[in-house]
């Protein structure tokens, strides 16, 4: 059964069309990577699925319910954003906000909520620094806590928007493995927005590629080919596979080439 149904979705800002006719379904346990250059609506798609942005046309249903009605819990992992060093907040407190942060009042922990926080911390391997102030933790540690916060309420869907930005390669792998483990163990589908497919390539089931003038969805082997991308960009694009990595060369923005270059210098 599909958890997410996206039907004929379109998004326009003024005269600019980011995407249109976008349709796909997500099954339980599926990991979908959303790829593409800047400004093609990757983050907007996430915001539509979160109920924060209204599409110009079409609809999204999460277990049959429009996102705006918030019938179901959705886990959200954004880009890493550094916390103030002085912030009086422990890792444990941050994770707990995932359970009751939206409730009015002082927030009471229900029965078993304390255990759920502990279990989420354990699942992401953050138990050792659960009582440290978040502002003193490294970027990788903070991002693990955000994953714990996203999964603590047992969401029906996890949306991750560039969660690997400004993490080093080892921590990128950790975050991907955590989300991968979650969807395998709990069957929670994951939508993973990224500008670089390589950190998620091993785990991903399907790829949604948003290009300036169209989109394509399918397995990495179907979408990440010279033919498909050349079609999408309406120019000659080469997709190379080098030592298990995907390198895209010749897109008009040349973003992927630069990115690969950056990685090698790190």
């Amino acid at each position, binding site marked *: 059964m599909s958890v997410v149904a996206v039907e004929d979705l379109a998004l326009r800002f003024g005269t600019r069309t980011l995407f249109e006719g976008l349709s796909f379904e997500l099954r339980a346990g599926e990991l979908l990577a959303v790829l593409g250059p800047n400004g093609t609506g990757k983050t907007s798609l996430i915001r539509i699925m979160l109920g924060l942005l209204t599409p110009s046309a079409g609809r999204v249903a999460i277990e049959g319910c429009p996102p705006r009605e918030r019938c179901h819990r959705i886990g959200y992992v954004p880009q890493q954003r550094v916390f103030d060093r002085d912030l009086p*907040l*422990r890792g444990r407190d941050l994770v707990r*906000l995932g359970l009751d*942060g939206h409730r*009015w009042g002082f927030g009471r922990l229900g029965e078993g909520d304390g255990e759920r926080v502990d279990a989420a911390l354990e699942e992401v391997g953050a138990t050792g620094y659960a009582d440290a*102030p978040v502002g003193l*933790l490294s970027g990788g540690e903070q991002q693990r806590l955000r994953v714990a916060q996203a999964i603590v309420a047992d969401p029906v869907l996890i949306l991750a928007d560039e969660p690997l930005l400004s993490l080093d390669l*080892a921590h990128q792998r950790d975050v991907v493995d955590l989300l991968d483990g979650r969807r395998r163990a709990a069957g929670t589908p994951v939508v993973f927005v990224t500008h670089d497919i390589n950190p998620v390539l091993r785990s991903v089931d399907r790829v949604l590629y948003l290009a300036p003038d169209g989109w394509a969805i399918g397995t990495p082997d179907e979408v990440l080919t010279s033919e498909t991308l050349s079609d999408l960009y309406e120019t000659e694009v080469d997709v190379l596979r080098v030592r298990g990595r995907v390198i895209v060369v010749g897109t008009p923005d040349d973003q992927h080439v630069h990115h690969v270059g950056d990685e090698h210098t790190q």
Partner: protein
Amino acid sequence: MFTQLLAQHFVHTALWAGAVVAVVSGVIGVFVVTRGMSFAVHAISELGFTGAAGALVVGLDPVIGVLGGSLLVGLVLGLLSLRGRERDSAIGAVLAFGLGIGVLFLSLYQGYATEATNLLFGSIVGVSDAQLRTLAIVGAIVLAGVAVLYRPLLFSSVDPEIAAARGVPLRALSVGIFLLLALTTAEAIQVVGVLLVLTLVITPAAAAQHLTRRPGVALLLSVAIALVSTEGGILLSLVKPWPTSFFITTISFTAYLGARAYGIGLKPRLRPAGATGRGLRGAGA
């Protein structure tokens, strides 16, 4: 002399008024500091002064003017819900213009200049029973407001993006916190004056941040520091006839310095050794 003064009714009233204002300021200060709204506090209090000066000109109770001025600015800043530099410059522009109007009102006001001085630097010993009652009612409103908003306010202060994704109404909360802050400021003005509001709304909360890593404890410590500063300041001014506001600011600033010094020693201990664990240090890092 000191014991004689302690038996005076006006001293009791002052101590109670100080306690109310300290509790409310200590509580709201925690959110003000976490959200980086210190400059907004300053703006709201200065425009509270403009409101008071306006009230004096037309013959109203200056307290009403203070409330009106702070609430108006609080509402505007809350609705704008700006961030970062844009917020700073917008506040600066509004603040300067508002003070300009305040200066005009003062020049139009024909009464005693002490009224204006009291507004600027506080006059805790002049609080009447009726004013104390108003302080208590407004204080109760602020505390009730914080109690209702506490959890989403904490969430949106820490992580606005995720809070929004979970359906927390950011703009409504922003208006809410600014209005509560405006009420708090209007209260604090009556104790320490327009120019020294920061000593109760910012300093205790900023000090508390350095003493603990737990949000609830930070709130309690902030209230405690505000209480000690206010009550201590009032009592000291009975011993030595210097301005109460001087003593209050001195105590709260001392607490702040002490907390910072303590925090420097605390940090390394809060950060557990090898917290990264599991050999996860990045290869390239």
